[in-house]
């Protein structure tokens, strides 16, 4: 046997195992991709003619003539919720006894916890990337150029890791798949208490107030700046900060929860 059973090797082996599980259940990937793509097509079809921009002769110009650019961030944010599967992977291992088997071996407990998070992250990149490809096909064109795709994907990745962290924490604390799945229920209020369909300036009353405190607002606004307006650095920066802070907060919560769950009773 090799003497270099390093943390990274263990993490790589455990991640590969979980990826095999993902590949073996392709149908589990479809609903979230389908919903995200559905949002893109339906919102573009339903709202593009109204908010699509003066170039198309529409009443309002939110999109500099390209409504796909404006609405694509909503679908990307939706796709990034797929990071919430991390907690489900972990709970499945706990429920099946696989987690306990690994605990009885000389393996780093952090490798056991981080592997599902890493797979969740890859899932976010894959799903958000796929939605971007669909967006590109139907006419998306970032105002900042091709680098915009990379920047939007980076924000989506951070946002998705936030959901991954929350689902892992909820999963290990509740010990159930339902607990882990609760992460996806956070998504809907987070998405719709934000400037989803119109810019924040067009919101009013309590929704305008709620959206100001909702980090999703800043994530969507940053993505829209990249896609629609160009280099508006402070808005883009706020988006990265909101998504990064969400990820840092929930991942810390996940680590603390996992530490408690892996302590010997």
């Amino acid at each position, binding site marked *: 046997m*090799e*003497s270099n059973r390093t943390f990274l090797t263990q993490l790589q082996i455990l991640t590969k*195992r979980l990826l*095999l599980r993902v590949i*073996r259940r392709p149908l589990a990937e479809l609903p979230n991709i389908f919903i995200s793509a559905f949002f893109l097509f339906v919102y573009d079809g339903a709202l593009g003619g109204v908010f699509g921009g003066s170039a198309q002769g529409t009443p309002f110009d939110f999109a500099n003539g390209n409504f796909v650019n404006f609405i694509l961030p909503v679908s990307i944010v939706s796709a990034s919720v797929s990071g919430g599967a991390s907690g489900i992977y972990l709970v499945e*291992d706990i429920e*099946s006894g696989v*987690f306990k088997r690994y605990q009885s*071996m000389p393996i780093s407990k952090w490798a056991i916890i981080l592997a599902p998070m890493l797979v969740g992250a890859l899932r976010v990149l894959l799903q958000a990337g796929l939605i971007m490809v669909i967006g590109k096909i139907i006419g998306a064109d970032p105002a900042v150029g091709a680098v915009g795709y990379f920047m939007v994907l980076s924000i989506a990745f951070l946002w998705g890791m936030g959901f991954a962290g929350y689902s892992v924490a909820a999963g290990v604390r509740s010990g159930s*798949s339902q607990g882990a799945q609760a992460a996806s229920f956070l998504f809907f209020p987070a998405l719709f208490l934000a400037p989803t369909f119109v810019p924040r300036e067009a919101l009013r009353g309590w929704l305008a107030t709620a959206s100001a405190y909702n980090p999703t607002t800043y994530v969507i606004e940053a993505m829209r700046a990249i896609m629609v307006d160009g280099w508006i650095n402070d808005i883009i920066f706020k988006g990265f900060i909101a998504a990064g802070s969400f990820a840092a907060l929930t991942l810390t919560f996940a680590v603390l929860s996992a530490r408690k769950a892996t302590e010997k009773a």
Partner: protein
Amino acid sequence: MLAVDVKNIKKTFTSKQDTVEAVKDVSFQVKQGEIFGLLGPNGAGKSTTILMLTTLLSITDGKASILGIDVETQEKQVREKIGVALQDTGIDNLLTSKELFFTTCRLWGYNKSDSEKRTEELLELVGLTEAADRRVKTYSGGMKRRLDLGLSLVHSPEILFLDEPTTGLDPGSRRVLWDEIKRLRDTGVTVILTTQYLEEADELADRIAIIDEGLVVAEGTSDELKASIGGDVITFLFETEEDIIKAQQVLTDSVQEKMELRITVEDGASKIPGYLKELTSAGIEVSSVSASKPTLDDVFLEVTGYRLEGSEEPVEETPTSTRGR
């Protein structure tokens, strides 16, 4: 050096509602190369004992060591020495057994080519070569147990812990697993297994500890335990409740079980005529009478006061499928 040395270990679970003493006081020693059986009913503390010895639960009080290594303070070193197959099989149903062996080999530190070789060896060892490329969800209960056993052997452990290895298996699959466990013992592996099957303890274990309510109530070889209750067991069968009640006045040390009374005496066969004469004189009709050597079942009854119910009734084996999402 002892393979396992357990001294007065205790395990208490404390919650907001109450405190439960799952293991009150358990001590035993296991020599290298023997099969040691922990026999007891559900809830006796067998699995909790195993979880403590395999470093998965902390020990509330007492000391335990594996090959001289302290279980509480040297977890990592202990884990290097042991193989563990717990009650929940801990198998990923979506993968094939070949993938599971390979992954486990890699986690134990084998390089890729050694992992491939070891995977083939272990598939052969547990008789799963032909099913190696099938997903585990298509396996029968017996195949999953064999796979579980194989996975616990990847790193050639010196000591193997098996928690109820044949629970839920049909008699044929049980026998296959017993043969494999004996073969492992013959190659020098020390095996500590828990069971609620008397027959399994009798057949497999070189020495047995009977655990009841978190305490070791008897320990020894199967023959020693049987000899400890002394003599032979005479079983009297009666037709009516009335006869049993009257017979208990005559057979004062007897234990009733359904329509039978049992007494344990030296040289049972020679004493049957005398008992029959006494019973007949008292107007009691005896349907049948027999004398036999004590079984492990009798030992269990003697030391715990009750029988290990349902211990000889394995569950039908059926292939299982994975949970869908």
